[in-house]
C-alpha cells in the first residue's frame, strides 16, 4: 500500500499548493465541415462540435470526483477555421466564430480555440478573410480564441502578416474597449505554432492530427515552489533534481487523467503538455519559483538563467512520466495570470525587454502583457517581429499575446477577471519602428549550420 505519508503529501499538494490538471482539451477536426455557403458551413461546425464533445465536461467532472484531483478547465480546439471556411464565398467569417461560441456554450466548455490561420509563408484568400474577421469575431463572441502563425523556422517570418497582426490587435482592442481590450487576451500571434497545444488562447487542432483527440495540460507551480522551499541554499544540482522529481509526479497524474478521459470518451489520447501554468491565485506563481531560487524580485539579473533551468528541469522530469509529450511543454510566463509577475511588473523590475529575454528560454513568449492604449500598430508589429525572430532562430515556439489597453497609460492596471487576471500597463519604447514594418515581404529562414 502507498504510505500514509505519501497520501497526506498528495492531499497537501491538492489542498494547499494548487495542484490541479489545468485542462482536458478535446481536439476536433472540422475538415469535413467545409461548404461554400457560410450558414451551412457554420451549421455543420456547430453540429460536429456538439456531437463530438457532448460528454466532455461530464466525463471530466466524473474523473475529477473519482481521482480527487481538480480538473480546472475542459476545452475544445478545432481545425484552423481559415482552412475550413476558405471555401465559403462570404467575406466576413464572423458567423463561423459565432457557431463555435454557441457550440462551446452548449458543451459547457469555457474556451474554444481555432479561429486561426497559418500564414507563415503567405496568405490564402481564406486566410485573409479570416484575419480580417478576427476583431469582429472576438468582439461578438465570448469563448472563442484566435491565433495566427506568422513564422516558422523553415519558412522564415512573413512580415506582411506581422504588419497586419499589429493592426488587427489594435482593432480588436478598439472593438472590445469597454472590457479593457479583452478581445486581445484571446488572440495569439505565433512563430512555430504547435498542432497539439491544449492551452488557450493558442490551441488549435492541426491538420496532421486525427479526427478527434484528447490532450491534457498539467500545472503545478505551487507544488514546485513548495518543494524548493525545502532545499533552501542547496546547489543548483539539488534544485534541478528537486524540480525534476516534482514535475515527474505532476505529469504522471496528468497521464493518468489523459488515459481515463481517452478511454471513457473513446477518443485517442494525444499528448500531455508538461507545463507550469500559473494562475493569479497566491501560491500558484512561476515568478515566485524564480524568486525562491534566489532572486529578490523576478526580472532582476539572473532571472533568465533561473527560468532556463526551471524550464529544462520540468521537461526532463515530465518526459519520462508520459507516453506522449507535446504541446507547449515548459514554464509559462503570462504576466497578468501570475501573481508574482504582476507584482514584479508593477514594481518596475520586470520589464518588457527582460520578458523578451526570458522568452528565449521559456515555453512560449510575451504573454498577457498590457501596454499603453496609444501604442501604435507598428510598434506592436515590431514586438511581434522580435518575438518571432527568437522563435525562428532558436527553433522553438514563441508567441505574443499583447493588449494595447484602450485609454490606459503606464501605471494603470487592466482587470480581466478569472484566470486571465489583471495586467499592469507596461511601458514600450517610444522610438518609431514604422519604416521597419513598412518594408513588408518575408525575412528568410535562418541557416542551421555555422552556429554562433
Amino acid at each position, binding site marked *: 500500500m*502507498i504510505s500514509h505519508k505519501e497520501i497526506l503529501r*498528495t492531499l497537501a499538494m491538492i489542498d494547499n499548493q494548487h495542484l490541479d490538471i489545468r485542462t482536458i482539451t478535446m481536439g476536433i477536426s472540422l475538415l469535413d465541415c467545409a461548404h461554400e455557403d457560410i450558414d451551412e458551413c457554420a451549421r455543420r461546425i456547430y453540429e460536429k462540435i456538439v456531437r463530438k464533445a457532448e460528454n466532455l465536461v461530464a466525463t471530466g467532472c466524473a474523473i475529477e470526483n*473519482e481521482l480527487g484531483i481538480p480538473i480546472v478547465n475542459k476545452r475544445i480546439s478545432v481545425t484552423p477555421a481559415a482552412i475550413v471556411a476558405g471555401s465559403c464565398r462570404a467575406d466576413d467569417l464572423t458567423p463561423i466564430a459565432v457557431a463555435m461560441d454557441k457550440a462551446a456554450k452548449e458543451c459547457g466548455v469555457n474556451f474554444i480555440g481555432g479561429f486561426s490561420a497559418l500564414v507563415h509563408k503567405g496568405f490564402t484568400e481564406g486566410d485573409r478573410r479570416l484575419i480580417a474577421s478576427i476583431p469582429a469575431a472576438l468582439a461578438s463572441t465570448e469563448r472563442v480564441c484566435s491565433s495566427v502563425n506568422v513564422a516558422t523556422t523553415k519558412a522564415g517570418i512573413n512580415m506582411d502578416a506581422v504588419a497586419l497582426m499589429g493592426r488587427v490587435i489594435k482593432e480588436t482592442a478598439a472593438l472590445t474597449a469597454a472590457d479593457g481590450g479583452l478581445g486581445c487576451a484571446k488572440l495569439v500571434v505565433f512563430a512555430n505554432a504547435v498542432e497539439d497545444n491544449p492551452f488557450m488562447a493558442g490551441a488549435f487542432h492541426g491538420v496532421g492530427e486525427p479526427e478527434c483527440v484528447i490532450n491534457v495540460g498539467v500545472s503545478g507551480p505551487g507544488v514546485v515552489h513548495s518543494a524548493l522551499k525545502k532545499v533552501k541554499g542547496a546547489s543548483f544540482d539539488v534544485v534541478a533534481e528537486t524540480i525534476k522529481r516534482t514535475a515527474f509526479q505532476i505529469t504522471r*497524474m496528468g497521464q493518468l487523467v489523459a488515459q481515463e478521459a481517452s478511454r471513457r470518451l473513446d477518443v485517442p489520447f494525444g499528448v500531455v503538455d508538461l507545463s507550469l501554468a500559473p494562475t493569479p491565485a497566491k501560491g500558484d506563481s512561476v515568478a515566485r519559483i524564480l524568486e525562491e531560487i534566489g532572486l529578490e524580485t523576478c526580472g532582476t539579473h539572473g532571472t533568465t538563467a533561473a527560468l532556463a533551468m526551471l524550464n529544462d528541469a520540468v521537461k526532463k522530469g515530465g518526459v519520462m512520466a508520459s507516453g506522449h509529450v507535446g504541446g507547449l511543454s515548459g514554464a509559462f510566463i503570462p504576466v497578468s495570470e501570475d501573481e508574482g509577475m504582476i507584482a514584479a511588473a508593477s514594481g518596475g523590475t520586470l520589464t518588457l525587454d527582460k520578458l523578451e529575454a526570458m522568452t528565449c528560454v521559456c515555453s512560449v513568449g510575451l504573454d498577457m502583457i498590457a501596454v499603453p492604449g496609444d501604442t501604435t500598430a507598428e510598434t506592436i508589429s515590431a514586438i511581434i517581429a522580435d518575438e518571432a525572430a527568437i522563435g525562428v532562430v532558436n527553433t522553438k515556439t514563441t508567441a505574443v499575446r499583447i493588449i494595447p489597453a484602450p485609454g490606459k497609460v503606464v501605471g494603470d492596471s487592466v482587470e480581466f477577471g478569472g484566470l486571465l487576471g489583471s495586467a499592469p500597463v507596461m511601458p514600450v519604447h517610444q522610438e518609431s519602428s514604422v519604416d521597419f514594418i513598412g518594408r513588408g515581404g518575408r525575412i528568410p529562414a535562418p541557416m542551421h549550420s555555422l552556429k554562433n
Partner: protein
Amino acid sequence: MRGIVTVVGNDRVGIIAEVCTLLASMGVNILDINQTVMQGFFTMTMLVDIGNTETPFETIHSSLKKKGEDTGLAIRIQREDIFNAMYKV
C-alpha cells in the same frame, strides 16, 4: 477497484467506528488502516475495496463527504490509481 479514504480533523472518540460503520453499510471492504494523532490532530488513511460493492462510487463519495460535513472532519475517497501514478514507477 481500490480506493483510499482519508479522514483529517480534530481527534475525538469514535471517529474510526463511525467511518467504518458507514463504509460497511455501503458494502465497502476495508483492507488496511493507518492512523496517527499529532497534537490532537487526527489523520487516518484507509485502503478500501470498492470492486465488490453495488454502491456506485459517486454515492460512496457523496456519503463520505456529507459525513465529514456533519462531523467537522475532512473525509474523502479517491481511487488508489492517483497515488500509484505519483509514487510508483
